[in-house]
Each structure stands twice: as structure tokens, then as C-alpha cells.
């Protein structure tokens, strides 16, 4: 099942109607196989973030079909989409978006609370193992706002991984990081793909980062160029 399709988009259209109708995405179709490490690049305003929000099921205001794990998700209810997001998609944003009210460990465990397949001890153990893999296990009990930017991004990756998702989506994951931290994050991504056979989809501005991925999707004016 090496080349099984993880995510498939079929002729996706999206337009903003306020104040005037602007087509953001026109007739986008592509698919991503399991184990792929894909980056989406393009100039600002080409619609790559919009595309990410659509394929991450957060934005359901579009036409076309979206299949995740060969399951049609277009037109599902908000509750079902939330469940799919929780189970199959891990998120890393440009800004870390950790919850300051919780410790690092709790932040990582949070999506697991919703998933609710593991006992709390197991979940905690799993979260700790993830932090260990990312080399930040000593931060586990610190409050989230007390750690540095690079560390926060790694915590965010651990959080994205907690439910063992099918696909990891990242929106400018290194946009806010210096080159050293960017390298660390890239290495982590690489390892996730190579050792854990995860599927990665990264939206990025960073050409050098994009070039190191297995496949680059270049977008311009709401279309895919290559």
C-alpha cells in the first residue's frame, strides 16, 4: 500500500464575495500519496494558505471535492469535520499557538483529550515520548509561555503528532524561526517522513526549505503551475 492516496483534491474552486467577487482558487486538482513530503510555494496572495485551510477541513466554503484517506469530506457537518481533523490531521502554524494556561505536556496532550482513545496515563506517556524524540523533554512541566520560540514550534509539532495523524499540515512552520531552528525543524520533518512514514504538506515561502522536500507544488493566481 506504499502509494495509497492520502489526500486528493478534485477541481476546487473558492472565491471571496466581499466586497466584490474575487476568485482565489480556480479548478485546483492534485493528490498526495502516503509518505510524501510535499511543499506548496508561491507568492503572497496566490491562495496557498487558503488552499491549506480548505484541505485541512477548517474552511468548508468551497466547491469541488476533497478526499482524505479516500473518504469524501466535502459537505460533512462541522462536528464530523472536527472529528476528522482531530484524528487524521496534525497542524503546525507559523505562530505556535500554544495555550498559555497549560504546561508544555498538557499542550501536547490536548488533541488527545478530544480523541479519547487512550487512558490519560498512556496519553501522557506518549506525549512525553514525543517530546523526548524532539529533544525537549526537560520542558515538559514548564508553562507554555515560558519557553523560547524554537522550542514552542517543536512543542507544536509534538502536539500535531499526538494522535498519530495520517497527514501533517504546516503553514509557514519556519517563518518565524532563525536558520538554526529552521534546520532543527526540517530535520524533524525529514525524520517523520523517513522513519515514521508520515505524510507532510508544508506551505512555505522559504525556497531553500521547499527545495529540500520531495515534491514542490508551485501556485500562482489560484492555479497550480507545475
Amino acid at each position: 500500500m506504499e502509494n495509497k492516496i492520502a489526500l486528493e483534491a478534485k477541481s476546487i474552486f473558492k472565491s471571496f464575495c466581499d466586497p466584490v467577487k474575487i476568485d482565489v482558487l480556480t479548478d485546483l486538482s492534485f493528490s498526495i500519496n502516503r509518505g510524501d513530503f510535499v511543499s506548496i510555494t508561491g507568492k503572497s496572495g496566490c491562495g496557498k494558505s487558503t488552499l491549506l485551510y480548505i484541505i485541512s477541513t477548517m474552511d468548508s466554503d468551497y466547491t469541488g471535492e476533497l478526499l482524505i484517506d479516500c473518504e469524501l469530506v466535502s459537505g460533512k457537518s462541522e462536528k464530523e469535520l472536527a472529528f476528522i481533523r482531530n484524528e487524521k490531521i496534525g497542524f503546525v502554524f507559523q505562530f505556535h499557538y500554544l495555550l498559555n494556561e497549560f504546561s508544555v505536556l498538557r499542550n501536547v496532550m490536548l488533541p488527545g483529550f478530544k480523541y479519547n482513545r487512550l487512558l490519560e496515563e498512556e496519553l501522557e506517556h506518549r506525549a512525553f515520548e514525543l517530546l523526548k524524540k524532539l529533544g525537549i523533554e526537560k520542558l515538559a512541566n514548564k508553562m507554555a509561555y515560558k519557553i523560547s520560540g524554537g522550542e514552542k514550534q517543536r512543542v507544536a509539532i509534538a502536539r500535531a503528532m499526538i494522535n498519530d495523524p495520517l497527514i501533517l499540515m504546516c503553514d509557514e512552520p519556519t517563518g518565524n524561526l532563525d536558520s538554526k531552528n529552521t534546520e532543527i525543524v526540517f530535520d524533524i520533518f525529514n525524520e517523520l517522513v523517513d522513519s515514521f512514514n508520515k505524510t507532510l504538506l508544508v506551505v512555505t515561502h522559504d525556497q531553500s526549505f521547499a527545495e529540500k522536500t520531495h515534491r514542490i507544488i508551485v501556485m500562482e493566481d489560484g492555479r497550480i503551475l507545475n
Partner: protein
Amino acid sequence: MKNKHIFLIARALLMARFKQTLVAAVGVTFSVAFFIALLGFMEGLNKLLDGLVLNRTPHIRLYNDIQQSSMQPIDLDTAYNDYHNFISSIKPTNSRKEIYNVEHIIKKLNTDNRVYGVAPKVTAQAFYNLGNIELNGLINGVDVVQESKLFNFKEYVFEGNYMDLQNRSNSIILGQGVADKMLAKKGDLIQVTTINGEQFSLKVIGFFRSGIAELDKVQSYVSLATCQKLLGKPNNYISDIQIKLNEMGQAPVIAREYEQLFRINAEDIQTANAQFETGSSARTIISFAVGIVLLIVAGFGIYNILNMMIYEKMDTIAILKATGFSGADVKKIFVTISLGIGFGGALAGALLGLFFSVLIDSIPFNSTSVPGVDTYPVDYGIQYYSIAVVFAVATTYFAGWFPARKASSVDPVEIIRGK
């Protein structure tokens, strides 16, 4: 999604804005506390004021009413049976005021297990002689022991021993108003003229104060035997039988029953004192209305604070949603926050309300019109506490529900994109 984790997140959000949370909770606490104190105080006063009259009013009074016979001679004549007979200006016959067969009635009443106690009574119209002046008076002949047991007679006798009424013949306990007018002291002999024109000397052995000044200007108490003597009647002459029931609410039904059974007039307390019920319930409604307004105001406070919290925590909501929390989960979290504030505030409020009640209860309150009371009356009924807590929790639930719905419909894309 386990409730435990909803709690966990809700608690963390609460703690993050601890001061605001506290302000909201204190709002609930105070409104619950004032609700309880207000209603407890109001009900305490209600009971006290009603008690002034109701405690001394028999639940059922048996007596012979003066009324026209419903069977007039013409009705007995078969020749006029088919006619409408108009008789004007009918007068009652010279019927006896006393109750027939009183001993048997009292014996029968004492075996009825719905009856708490029975007190016979004789009333005599009389004049108190004060030099040339005659003061109108009403002298009650009572069975001292029963009167005290059923109607707290001894509470109202503020000078002298009420038992002396029974132990010493020709003794009288004067109403305070009468005593003041006559300048009577304990041990004085006073002159009383009955409506038959006979004069008696009675020894003053005490004074009583009912709390209703109008009554005290007229009424006095003597023993049954003395009163019968005043009227020149034998010792089986009883004009009223006062009955106290175990359940006051049954009075109208039982009164009807006795009316049938003893062929006598029976008046129940509800008919005789309907206005007290009305007054009490109106006061209770007013205090409930004020209390509930307090709670609703507290609810608006919570609404405001949760709304602010949602604006502050947009990022948190967005990330929760992005990582797979559904709108329903987010709503649950915010409703939990609101209920947490409500519960905490309400429980603290119940305690504070109890404290306020105790405080009010210890404020000195000396009123000449209310005997036997030296602090403000407070009712500690559990119902006020439960109503306040339930209503507070319900208010906070609704106050939280609207902001929670708003939070649940936050679009994570908009928040994340905005960065």
C-alpha cells in the same frame, strides 16, 4: 471527549483570568446572599405579624349565631306551599347564645385526632366603671390552661401570674389600654357593670398586651366561672368553643363537618382572616421579585465577563478548533466556566446569606406592640436557600450560553489568517 477534560480546560481558562472570574462570582454571591437574607427577613416578619393574629385565632370557632329562622310559620302551613311567600322585616327569635350540650361536644372533639386542642370561652359585654364614666368593655371568660396551651395566653400577660386567674375567684387581667385609662395597679379592685345592670368588684391580678392596641383598650380576661357569674348563668354556659387543629389547612372542611354534626355555626380561620393570607403572599411576591432581579443583574455580569473572555481567548478557541475540538466542545467549555462561576458564587452566597440572616437575627428589636420578641425575626427556611442556588445556577447557565454559542461559532481560519 471526557467531561473531565472539559473541566480541565475550563478551569485553566478560569484561572487565567482569576480576578475577573472572582468579580463575576462575587456578583452571584452577593445576589444570592441578599436574596436569602431578604426573603428570610421578609418571611420572618410575615410570620411574626400573622402570628399576632393567627396564633390567637382559633382554627375553628363553634358558636350559636343570631339569625332568623329559615322556617317561618307560613312555610309550615301546607295550604300555602305552592305560593311565593314574601315576609318583610323578620326578626330573630330570642334564641340562646350558649351552645347546647357543650360537655358532650367537647368530649367528642377531644377524641378527634385531627384536633390539637379545645378551649371553651364565654364572652360578656360590660362597662368598666371609672368614677362617673363608663368605659366599653368586653370580658372574656377563658379556661386558663387551655388558653395558654393553644393561644400562648401567658406570652401576652406581661405583669402578674396568669394562673392566678384560675386560682383566685373574682380576679381579672386587664388589657393594657383599659388599665392605662383606669390608672389601675396590680391588686386594685375595679368596678364592672354588666349589661344586665349588675355591678361586680374584680381584683386586678395582671395586665396583658396583645400587640393590637385597639383590642387592649377593650378586652380583659377572667376565668370561665367568674364570667359565668357576671352573666348570671350556670356553669355549663359556654358561648364559644375554640378549636385548634393539627393541620390549619383542613379548617374549612372540618368546620363544615362540625356544622353538620353538631348543628351549630362553625367559622374557620381562612374565612375569618382571609386578608392576612393576601397580605403575606403579596409581600412574598415582592421580595421574590427583588431577589430575582438581583440574580438577573448578576447574570448580566457573567455574560459580560464571558464575552470579554471570549474575545481575549480567540486564539485559544481557534487552536482548539483547529486541533479537532468541535463547536459543541467549545460551547461545553464556556458553559462549564459559567456554571463553575454560578455554582461557586451560589454556594458562597448561601453561606453569606446564612451569615446575613444570623446578623439580622441578632439586631435588637423591641416593640411594645410585639410581645416576646427582642430581635428582628428571620425565617431560616431551607426553601430560600435552594431557590436562590437553583435560580442562580440557571441564570448563570443562560448568561454563559449566549457567549458560549458565540465562541462555538468562531471561525478558526479567520483568527489564524489574521496573524
